[in-house]
């Protein structure tokens, strides 16, 4: 059996308190009463009612004040105002202040029961809605963990066994069969990378990167990134040329994520390059900022695609043969660069190639403050 509903009635007329108690106690309610606002608010703390009736016209603390304090301190408690010499305007005023409804005096027992039931139902619905909201919020927050475990674990297990099988069956399978296994492995890899990208976009708080900021030589970052993108470039016979002046000022940032940005840009440049062409990485300073450009002479980007380029899932329409991708690399790169207080832009001409330029603030001599105040608030 569910516990009785707890209802508090605050009114300075004893006859109202008595009749309310009588009517509601006959149902499944437990009723407490208070003759004035001050006592009523005290009773709210100890009695913990679900619903409070408040007389608007009382000696001492007015009904409006009681209502306001109740809404502030206990938004989960429903309030109904009792209006004496009923003016509709004061009732409406009370409802604006958060009362659920108003009950004009004099009222019949049936009216009291009906309004009580409606208020309790309303409270229950509000409670359920809040619970659902909380659940939704938790789901969003835990999305990363859920997805990574529920999707990545089985894929990881599949992939691990493909690795092992390819290794073990090396001398038993025909080349065609081996090729199929390798292609399977590649597909699973793509899937894992896709999940990883989603997680990065939807749930990783990039602003946390700021905690790891330290002075960096961009040349180091470029060297690491070129090293990683190199494999990809060799396969397409694309040469990566690096031209960075030795006196380039340091920037303040997170080495891993900046490397990731550059790897993204380099991989893109290689992907959209023609075979036997060249991708150039150039760096320098301009207007107090360090810039880093990745320039290719590949297919280029159509004008109408340029504006969507840095959006989630935005890919240019012109896809060269064999260019896979989910269109999140640039979106992630942009976010990473912005967390660094910098910007990223692109210039491109279809058929001639593209140039992506990252601009980053120069690291200050005292490395205590690491963000650029002019653009630091962007996320």
């Amino acid at each position, binding site marked *: 059996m569910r516990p009785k509903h707890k209802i508090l009635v605050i009114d300075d007329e004893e006859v109202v308190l008595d009749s309310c108690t009588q009517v509601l106690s006959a149902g499944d309610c437990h009723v407490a009463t208070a003759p004035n606002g001050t006592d009523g608010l005290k009773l709210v703390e100890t009695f913990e009612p679900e619903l409070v009736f408040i007389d608007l016209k009382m000696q001492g603390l007015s009904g409006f004040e009681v209502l306001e304090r109740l809404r502030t301190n206990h938004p989960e408690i429903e309030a109904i105002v009792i209006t004496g010499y009923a003016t509709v305007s004061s009732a409406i005023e009370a409802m604006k202040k958060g009362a659920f409804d108003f009950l004009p005096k004099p009222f019949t027992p049936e009216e009291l029961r009906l309004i009580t039931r409606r208020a309790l139902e309303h409270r229950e619905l509000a409670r359920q809605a809040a619970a659902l909201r909380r659940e939704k919020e938790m789901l969003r927050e835990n999305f990363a963990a859920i997805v990574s475990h529920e999707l*990545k*674990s089985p894929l*990881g297990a*599949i992939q691990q066994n493909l690795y092992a099988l390819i290794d073990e069956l090396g001398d038993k399978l025909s080349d065609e069969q081996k090729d199929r296994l390798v292609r399977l492995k590649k597909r699973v890899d793509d899937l*894992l990378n896709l999940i990883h990208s989603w997680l990065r976009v939807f749930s990783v708080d990039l602003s946390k990167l700021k905690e790891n900021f330290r002075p960096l030589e961009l040349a180091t970052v470029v060297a690491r990134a070129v090293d990683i993108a190199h494999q990809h470039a060799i396969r397409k016979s694309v040469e990566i040329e690096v031209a960075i002046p030795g006196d380039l000022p340091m920037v303040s940032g997170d080495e891993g994520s900046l*490397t990731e940005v550059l790897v993204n840009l380099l991989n893109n440049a290689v992907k959209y390059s023609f075979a036997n062409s060249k991708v150039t990485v150039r760096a320098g300073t301009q207007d107090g900022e360090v810039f880093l450009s990745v320039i290719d002479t590949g297919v280029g980007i159509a004008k109408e695609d340029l504006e969507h380029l840095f959006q989630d899932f935005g890919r240019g329409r012109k896809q060269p043969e064999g260019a896979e991708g989910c269109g999140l690399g640039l979106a992630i790169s942009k976010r990473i660069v912005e967390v660094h207080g910098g910007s990223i832009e692109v210039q491109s001409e279809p058929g001639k190639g593209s140039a992506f330029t990252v601009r980053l603030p120069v690291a200050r001599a005292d490395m205590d403050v690491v963000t650029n105040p002019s653009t630091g608030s962007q996320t």
Partner: protein
Amino acid sequence: MNQTKKLLIIDDDPDFVAGMKSILVKANYEVDVAYNPKDGLQALQTKPYDLLLLDIMMGRGAEGIMIARKLGKDPKLRNLPVLIITGIREQMAFLFPGQAVHPHFVAVDELVEKPVEPKLLLEKVEALLKTAEARKGQSK
């Protein structure tokens, strides 16, 4: 170095374990498996192992981390090299595969991400065994 090395895998995903174990067995390691932290800890107490492969995210939480912490506090097991395997890349944000990550739960450990390429797995295992061996030699 000729003696067969004994490895223990603690991981609650039998399919993943199968894919990893066969690579290690083919490379002539002797491999035991525990599919939950309790069995894992018991195995470590009862049999001497040369290396532990530990899944860090088992079951509902980071039970693997608990094991790693326990090992770190155990004077007997503190020097057991541990290859920590994680399926959660977010925890090692912005790291690139193959790069050495030392969580420092125990004296000799390293972290790799699931799934692990056979070559990388064998390299890491070998390197950890070697490092642990060298440390042992020093302390004697």
